[in-house]
Structure formats: C-alpha cells, structure tokens
C-alpha cells in the first residue's frame, strides 16, 4: 500500500467514525420555539389526563381507591373497611393510590456508531431527548438523562420545572460519542443506580453486538416502563460501496475484506430490513412502545408522531 493510500484510509476512518458537527447551534431559538409549541400540543393530545400530577402504582394516602388487603397488626385503623367486615367478617384495609410526580429517564446512546457518517444520528437523538424532556419538565415531572455506551458515561441529576430546560441543553451539548455499544451492561448499572422506577426512554440506534433485546429486557425486568426511540439513518441501509473493500467497524475496529457486488448489496439491504423488523416485532410482542426516528424526517414531525404513538406520557 502506498503512503498516499495509507493517509487516505486513515483520514477516511476518522471522517467516517467521528464526523459529528459542532453542537453550538443544536438548541437555537428556533428549536426552543418549537419546544413551546410541542408542549402545548402535548397537552391537547393528552387532555384530561395531565394535571400536573400522575397516578402511580404506589398505594398510600391518596384519595383514589386502589385495592384491599388483609389487616396486619400495626396498620392504621382509619383505613379499615367496616362495610366489608360487616358483610364478610374479614378485616380488610382500604388502599388508596398515591399521587406523585412521574420520573422520566432519558437514556441516550452515545456509542461510536451514533456518530457514524455525518454524526447526524447523535444530533438527532439529542434534539429528541431535549424536546421530550421539555414536555416532561413542563408537566412538572422529574427528568433525568444518562448517556451510555458499554457503560453509563454521564448522568444529569433529576430535575423538574420548565426553567431547568437549559440545564438539559448544557448536558446534551457536552455529550460526545465514544466507545462500543453494550446496552445490557450499561442499563444494569442504570437500574442499580436509580431505585425509583419510572418511564425509561431509550434513544439509540440499537447497534448492540450483544443484541438489542438485552437492554430493553433489563428495563422491563426491573419494572421500568421502557419506551424505545430507534434512531435510523437511511444511508446506512444503502451504503455507497462497490468493488474490493476492507470493511472497518467504527465501533469495534473489526475488519473484513469483501468484494461488494450488486448482489451483495441487495442481500445487505434484505438483512438490514430483517434487523429492523426484528426490533419492531420484539417491541410489539412485549408491549414496549417503539418509535423509529429517521434522521431525514423533520424533527418536530417526529415528536408529534411520538405523542400520537402514545405511551410516552400517561
């Protein structure tokens, strides 16, 4: 290999793997105006269900009846249901749902693959995260953001109130792609660190060599409500490759020689579609809300689709 070729290849690797643009303009005035509009729209979409408080599964001192349970020594007599004692001769305690603020966790995948190509996937993920976080903050929910790769990389402490959106912006601006993807391990750490359950919005390209299912299952098994936003770039489905090439995985560094022919490209497209379909089916069968975010689709249109898809807010 000639010197020129080596330089060209090394440059090519750098540009392909880390081509993210600067994030100074990521949350500009125009973006913030859109957030206000989205916050209003989200209220209209979920009218009657959003009163600045959320019903939780916790039972306690709320006013809404939730369930009965048997009396245990030490329980407060005030909650004994005497009507039931009269009819069934059993001491049952009335349980009421507690009303509390909702915890929303945004898990942003910041692995190397998110910066592939022009780096648009990571930028798009940040904007989605910011928009949804604003809606959450505007509804007085507790919002927490973590970035992951093969581990939890950065964490923004829980916060609430619309005014904290700038904190969100600052945090997201500092996110940079690095490392390999291992959502399973990373989210195990996450659930261990966050005892309070809530809505876990996973924003990722789901390029996990260990399998995208692991991460989602970790959330499910630990009683988080997972919501998957799958960031995709259509150019990855139709790569501009031809001839003898050395494929280089920008995350793992794996290399593979291949001669790309139209036939090979067609098979790759089939495989890619199958992969997307697997994700879709996995989420559907497990009642995990799933939204595919194509970076070529305008950002606000995608957010509306998230609202309509439902499940993001209860």
């Amino acid at each position, binding site marked *: 290999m000639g010197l020129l070729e080596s330089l060209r290849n090394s440059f090519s690797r750098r540009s392909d793997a880390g081509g993210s643009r600067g994030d100074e303009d990521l949350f500009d005035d125009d973006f913030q105006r859109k957030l206000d509009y989205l916050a209003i729209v989200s209220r209209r979409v979920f009218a009657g269900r959003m009163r600045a408080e959320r019903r939780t599964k916790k039972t306690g001192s709320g006013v809404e009846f939730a369930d009965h349970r048997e009396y245990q020594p030490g329980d407060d007599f005030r909650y004994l249901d005497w009507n039931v004692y009269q009819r069934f001769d059993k001491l049952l305690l009335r349980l009421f749902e507690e009303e509390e603020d909702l915890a929303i966790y945004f898990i942003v995948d910041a692995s190397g693959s998110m910066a592939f190509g022009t780096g648009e996937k990571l930028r798009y993920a940040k904007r989605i995260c910011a928009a949804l976080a604003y809606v959450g903050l505007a509804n007085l929910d507790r919002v927490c953001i973590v970035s992951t790769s093969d581990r939890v990389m950065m964490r923004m402490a829980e916060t609430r109130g619309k005014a904290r959106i700038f904190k969100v912006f600052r945090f997201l601006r500092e996110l940079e792609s690095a490392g390999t993807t291992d959502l399973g391990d990373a989210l195990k750490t996450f659930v261990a660190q966050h005892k309070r359950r809530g809505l876990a919005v996973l924003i990722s390209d789901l390029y996990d060599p260990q399998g995208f299912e692991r991460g989602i299952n970790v959330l499910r098994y630990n009683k988080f409500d997972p919501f998957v936003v799958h960031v995709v770039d259509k150019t990855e489905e139709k790569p501009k490759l031809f001839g003898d090439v050395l494929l280089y995985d920008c995350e793992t560094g794996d290399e593979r020689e291949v001669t790309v022919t139209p036939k090979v490209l067609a098979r790759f497209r089939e495989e890619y579609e199958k*992969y997307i379909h697997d994700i879709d089916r996995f989420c559907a069968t497990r009642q995990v809300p799933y939204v595919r975010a194509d970076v070529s689709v305008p950002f606000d249109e995608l957010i509306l689709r998230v609202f309509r898809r439902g499940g993001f807010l209860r």
Partner: protein
Amino acid sequence: MIFAGLGFAQLAAIFGIAGAAVVGLYVLRLRRRTVAIPFSPLWQRILKDKDATTLFSRLKRLLSLLLQLALLALLVFALGDPRAAATLVKGRTLVVLVDASASMQATDVSPNRLEVAKNEVKAMIRGLGGADRMLIAQMDAMVTPLGPMSGDTSELERALDQVKATDARADFPRALRFATDTLRNVELGEIVVVSDGNLGPALDASGPVHLGDDKLSFVSVGKGKRNVGITQFSVRRYPLDKSRYEVMLEVTNTGPEQQDIELSLLGDGNVVDLTKLRLMPGERLPRFYPNLSGASRTLEAKLANVDGTHDELPADDHAYALLPERRRAKVLVVTEGNTYLEAALLLDEYLEVTQVTPLDYVNKHASGSGFDVVVFDRVTPATPPRAHALYLDPRGPGSPVKVDAELTAPGFDKIDRKHPIVRFTALDDVNVAHGHKLVPDVAAGDKIVGAFGGTSPILVSGSRGAYKFVALGFDVRDSDLPLRVAWPLFLLNTVNFFTDEDARYISSFRTGDVWRVPVSTQATEATLSLPGGGTERVPVHEGRAVYLGERAGFYELTAGDTAATPEQPAPISGANKTAFAANLLDAEESTIAPVPELVVDGKTAGKVEGFHVGVRREIWIYLLLAAVLLTALEWATYHRRITV
C-alpha cells in the same frame, strides 16, 4: 523455432523482471479500500456464505494472476520475433522493377497503367512472407532503387509511393543488369518485372543479359492497343527568309484500328495550322509544312481524335520545338567597291552592313571589333581583325592561310558538301579566270572546303584564336560566281556559319538520353528550368551542362557567373541562357499493346506466386493478437465481476 528479434536469454530476463513487477502489482492490487461501517454484525451474516467460497475466490484470483502472466509471456515472446526455422531459410529476395516509362501513362486501365502496376506491387508487399525481403526500383531511362532491401511493409510502401512516370522509354537491359547484380550470391533470388511488356530485347552494347539462377516473374499491366503518336518533329528557318520556317512531322498509328485524328500546329501558343488526317493501322505518315510563319520562338504539335475522344496514351500526343533565335548580324565590308557583294548582302534584312574603304578600315576599324563578321574584298590587313572574317582573294602576310602559286582557270573539282558554307550551292561548274592556291594550316584545324584538281585548295575554313575565317582563293570578279544563285547563298551561309545561325532542321532533345547542352561561361553548375515548373541544378563538364532528361517540354538553362542555389537562382542579368525542347518521339514506346509474355535469356518469365494478400507469416502478429484477445477477455470478466 528461431528468434529473429531478441535472444532467448534476453527474453527470459525481461520476463523475469516484468513478471516480478506484475506479481508485485498484483499483490498491491489486493490492498483494498478501507470503508467504515457502523455495525459489522449485519455484514457478517451476509459474508458467512462468502466464506464458503473463499477457496474458489482465491482460485479466481490465482487465475487472474496467471492470466496476467500469460499476457506478459505472449508480449515478451512477440518481442523475440519467433519464426519457424524453415521459413527463415526459405525467405525470398525480390527485386521488383516497376516500369515507369512513357507507355505506362496509358489510360486503358483506370486510372493508368502505372497506378495499376503500383497496386499490384502493393498487393505483393502485403503478401510478403516473414523472411522475405524486397527491393523496389523504378525502371525508365535508367534504373533507380527507391529504398533499401527490406521486409518492412511500411518502408516498402513508402518506396513504392516514390515511383513517378516519365516521358522516356525504359532501359530494360540496364534494369535487368542492376537486378542480377543485386541478387548476386543470393539464394532464392527473384526478379519481378511489373510492366506492359514493351521493353524491347534484353540486349545492349555489353551483349545479352544473363539471369543466372535468378527466377524471373512478370506482372503484365494494361489491355488497350489504340494509340496515335507523334514520332518525328523538327523545324528549320528558310535560309533566305528567316521569318518563315518549315516543319517536318511524322505521325504513327500504332494501334490495330483506323484512326481519324486532328493535328494542330501552334506557333508561340497560337494555332498556325490545323489538319485532319486518317491513318490506317500501323501507318506512319510523314508531313511537311512548308512556308509557315507566325511563330518566332516556340512551336508545338498536338494530336486529338476527331470524335473528341482521347487515345490511350496522351504522352505522345504533344511535341515541342524551338525555332532558332534570330538576331541582326553586324557585317563590315572592306572593299574598294563590289556591286555583287553589296547586292548579295542586301538580300538578308537581318544583316546590318557597313561598307568602308581599305583606308578607312585602317584608320577607323583596324581592330574590327564591334562587328560579327568582316568581309575583306581583295584586301588583306596586316593584322587579323577581332571578329570572324571572310577573305575574298587574300594576299600578303596578313592572310590567315598561306597564298601559294597562281592557278589558271581553276574550278571546284572537289567540294566538302557537308560543310555549312556550301550548303544548297552548286559550285561544280563555276568558271574562274585565275586564282591562287591556298595552303591550309592542318595543324590549326583548317578544313579544305573546295579544291581545284584535288591538290590546290581554293576555299578554306578554319579558325585563328577565338575567331573563324573563310578564305576564297580568287576574286569573284574574275569568275561567273556572282551571276549564280550560289553566290548569295555562299555569302549568307558563311555569315550564318560565323554567327552560328543554322539553316538545318532543328531537332529537339530526346527524352531518356543524357543531354549535353553547350554553356559558354566558365560556370561549373547551371540552373535548369523544367517544363512542369521548378528548377534543378545541373553540373557543367567541359563547357556542357549534363542532364538526364525524362520529361518532354520546353527547358531553359541558365549558366550565370554567380554561384546560385536552388533557393536563390542566378540573376537573369548577365546570365547566359539557353532554351531547348525535349520530346519522346519514339514509335516503339508509342506502341502500347501489352505484351503478355516476357522472354529474357531464353527463359519465359513466370507468373508471380507465393504472395497471399493480408497474411503475414510472422508469428509475433498472432502473439500480439492473442495478447489483445486475452486483454479483452480479462476486461470483460473483470467488469462482469467474474474474476474478482
């Protein structure tokens, strides 16, 4: 197998180096372009199937390398110019004599015979065998090889393109001797004559040509026979009226059919005569055109068919002649009075006569310079004049010849009738009362033109220094000569003899001969203006410009004192110019009927054989073709992703 190009060792070395380079390039070719991807497991699923075919892929790559090496081997092998040993040994050596004589301009075949001949030779060139060698020579009045002996087709075709038709006849014996000399000690030598066959016998002053072991082949060109040509053409001025002239011309029908022709005579470019003639097959028709006028310089004869068509050889339909240039001769007559002399000199208007007495001559014109001719009538100066001189009855020590004993009633018993001063005269019965015997200086080259009784010269010509003289040994008054027509003729002949104005028929030069044109200057080189335009430098030897003329038409020779170059000819002023004409005038060359068979040295020339047009028996061509084919195959398979 023999390598006619590079040797085996050299080829092996080249293949080794180039092969290593190819393998190196091949290995480099395997370095692939690195392309980043976001998620390799997707590709791995596809490439699992590919892994199964890795061995086959390697084999394909190996096949590709082998293809490259095979390509290289073919090219290197071609560099060696491999030939079958038998082919090399049996290579022929050919001398092709292309007839470029006048008859090859015949248009009975399109466009003309010479072009057809050249096409025949071109076909032979393209059919040359790998070991064959050929030399192409133009055969006309001489033989001119147009290139070296070569097997290179492009070189031979370039040589063939140089063949140009001439207006001369072919010197066949000379061409054959050249060919046999070229093929001396050469195995499988072959002479190929490409001609219409009108070459005459292979015989010259050295005897018949012997071909030896050389094979003779003949390619006959042409099919027509119909032709009428001008075979003689000359002109003369009349001695007594030089403004008029007489033309002698001969027309020959060399074809097998009767021909009606129109003969035009042009003087200075204008038609002076037009005649219609009918010629029977093979007829030679001489024609005299007396008493013509209207031309002062050039005369041309042209033939055309009455029906407006052209015959098949235009080269002999046009003939050229130049009339001798006329100028006024200045004549000084030194006499006490001679009416006969004065009357005779008045006959020619082109004479400028000055008459003086002997005393005036001594006082004013003693040198005689400034005149072309001085006539001394019964006067003999002490010193000879610086001009040509006619002495009538010379006496004394100033006489150019010794005057001896007196003769009584002499006569012209013996006359040199070929001498120009007595042409057209009848002097045999001239009566003379008395005269003197003249004694010529034989050592000085004097000639006795007329003598009495065989031993007493009475009319002598010669030269002294740069000037000619004529001496008549009697006083014309003592004879009846002035009463005869011979008298003015004698005087005018003598003046013409002195001034080189000849009353003979003026013939042109013949094309195909070596011309020796007199040049009066001391120049060693002269410039010759050619009929078709352009000039040529010709050498001058012993006062004559030497040139092998092969074109009919008008020529002009300029022999200036200033050295001239083709780019800058000698200046006209002060230059010595000579004009002359040249003609084919050859009845044999005008006979254009092609000869189907050629016999030389008792052997009949065979047909040309062994030339296969478009097929070269050289292996390297096929190797190159194979290489090109392989390249195309590799290209096609590569782009169809078969060998990648």
